[in-house]
């Protein structure tokens, strides 16, 4: 059984085959890594999954339901959350309000019409606590350091209380110490949440992923366990050995 399933997913930009007939399965309770050289089509692929970009052909199913034509916001409410590779937060709002927007907009729809309440505050505090930012709730999000903005992005994804969490290069710009904490965080999410992790840091992806899919030129080059992937000659040629 697969929680998130894509078949023949395709998106071309003019003549450029950014995503070219990709089949993909995310199992319940796994962390799957998605790797590939720059420009391989990873961000485009997950943008199709999340609904940021409409698909040209192919289908997407979430927990057996066809979501191929659903708008992005409806997918979020069904439990498919996406965090941006290029940090996308609300810089003019406080950290609290950034996360509160996720809490009240996501799958659980927590919070009263008045915009506050104990349940909302608890959910915000929990998400911020998970990324170690509990004491920054009152700060303006725009004034945070780059690393903290990345972690806020992750906290917003968690606050959506998703079934599937897609993380697009979340460790980019994190300090070494933060990365170790981040790996523990991702491992702690499963099996309640299934994670699709795009990652350029090999140590991270080999350390946390149960399985790995490799994209190259918009196509699946290989998939398997971390050990199988690092031993795969085609992968080494296209990517690791480069």
């Amino acid at each position, binding site marked *: 059984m697969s929680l998130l399933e894509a078949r023949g997913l395709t998106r071309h930009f003019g003549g450029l085959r950014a995503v070219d007939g990709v089949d993909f399965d995310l199992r319940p309770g796994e962390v799957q890594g998605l790797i590939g050289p720059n420009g391989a089509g990873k961000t485009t692929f997950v943008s199709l999954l999340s609904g940021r970009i409409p698909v040209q052909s192919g289908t997407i199913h979430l927990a057996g339901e066809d979501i191929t034509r659903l708008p992005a916001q409806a997918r979020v409410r069904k439990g498919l959350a996406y965090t941006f590779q290029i940090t*996308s937060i609300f810089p*003019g*709002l406080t950290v609290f309000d950034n996360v509160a*927007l996720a809490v009240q*907009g996501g799958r659980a729809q927590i919070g009263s019409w008045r915009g506050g309440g104990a349940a909302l505050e608890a959910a915000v505090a929990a998400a911020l606590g998970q990324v170690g930012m509990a004491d920054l709730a009152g700060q303006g999000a725009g004034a945070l350091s780059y690393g903290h903005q990345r972690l806020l992005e992750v906290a917003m994804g968690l606050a959506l209380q998703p079934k599937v969490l897609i993380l697009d290069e979340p460790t980019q710009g994190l300090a070494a110490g933060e990365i170790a904490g981040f790996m523990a965080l991702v491992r702690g999410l499963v099996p309640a949440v299934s994670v699709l992790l795009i990652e350029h840091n090999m140590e991270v992806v080999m350390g946390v992923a149960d399985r790995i899919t490799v994209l190259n030129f918009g196509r699946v080059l290989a998939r398997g366990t971390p050990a199988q992937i690092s031993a795969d000659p085609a992968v080494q040629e296209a990517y690791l050995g480069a």
Partner: protein
Amino acid sequence: MSGAKVWALHLAVLVALFAAQYLLPPYHATNLARVLVLALFAMGYNLAFGYTGLLSLGHALFFAGGMFAAGLPAYHFGFSAGPALILSLLGGGVLAGAVGLFALRTAGVSFMIVTLMFAQAGYLTLIYFNAWTGGDQGFAVPASGRSLFGFALSSDGPRFAVAWGLFALGFLVCLALVRSRFGRVMVAMRENEERSRLLGYNPFVVKLIVLVISGLYAGLAGGAWALLFGYAGASFATIQYSILPMLYVLLGGAGTVAGPVLGAALMFWLIELASGLTSAWLFLVGAALVVLVLFAPKGILGWVREKVWRGLP
């Protein structure tokens, strides 16, 4: 920031405005009634522009729509002020919803242009049906239409009371709205629409709701203007009346609850003062606006929020 403190402060503003009618000379008390109705209009504009980031150039249509929705039944069919005001509310809301259904498919400059075109079409419609609307001349609302619960709205006391009451209602609703869960989503649309979509919100629906609420404010203000000051005319549908609330909001502070009334009052008396001093009063007003943009680009209360009190709603 504590909720009780915020509410107490805004209630104090309302009390001070009510007391002002007894403290000001009668001429200025009447002007304050005008300012309060214009501020009601501007508060609605602020919900769309200041909080949600919708830069509309079509709000004159919603204001004039409310004005004629109240004025025409009062003039032609003898409606009294109560039903006429309800019609003005509906008129503004329905027009805003209809315009929004089309205009919200665009954003940015296109949104400005489309809303402007709708307002212009509304103005031409009013002119075209001049047998009913009085066209450019407009018409005087008869005394029968300017009566609310037996009080004549043409006399100072009831007129001020109604202007203040409608303003107070709009003011408190605005405060509750922007502090609500939905208010947080409004600001999210302004700050980062793409991100808000990926947090589960439908921008089109959110913006349409805001535009309708904004239209309710504008329509009610337009109706109140016709009934309190006794005149309705197509000139209120011209672009000038879309720009005015924007200027009030920019001056007082976009995205603040009390900014529109502060901006409306300052602008009103600035124009009053300048036109008494010199025939080149427009120049003085323009100079004041340039100074504002240079030194407090977020408006007066925007400046206060930045420097003094971060939690100011």
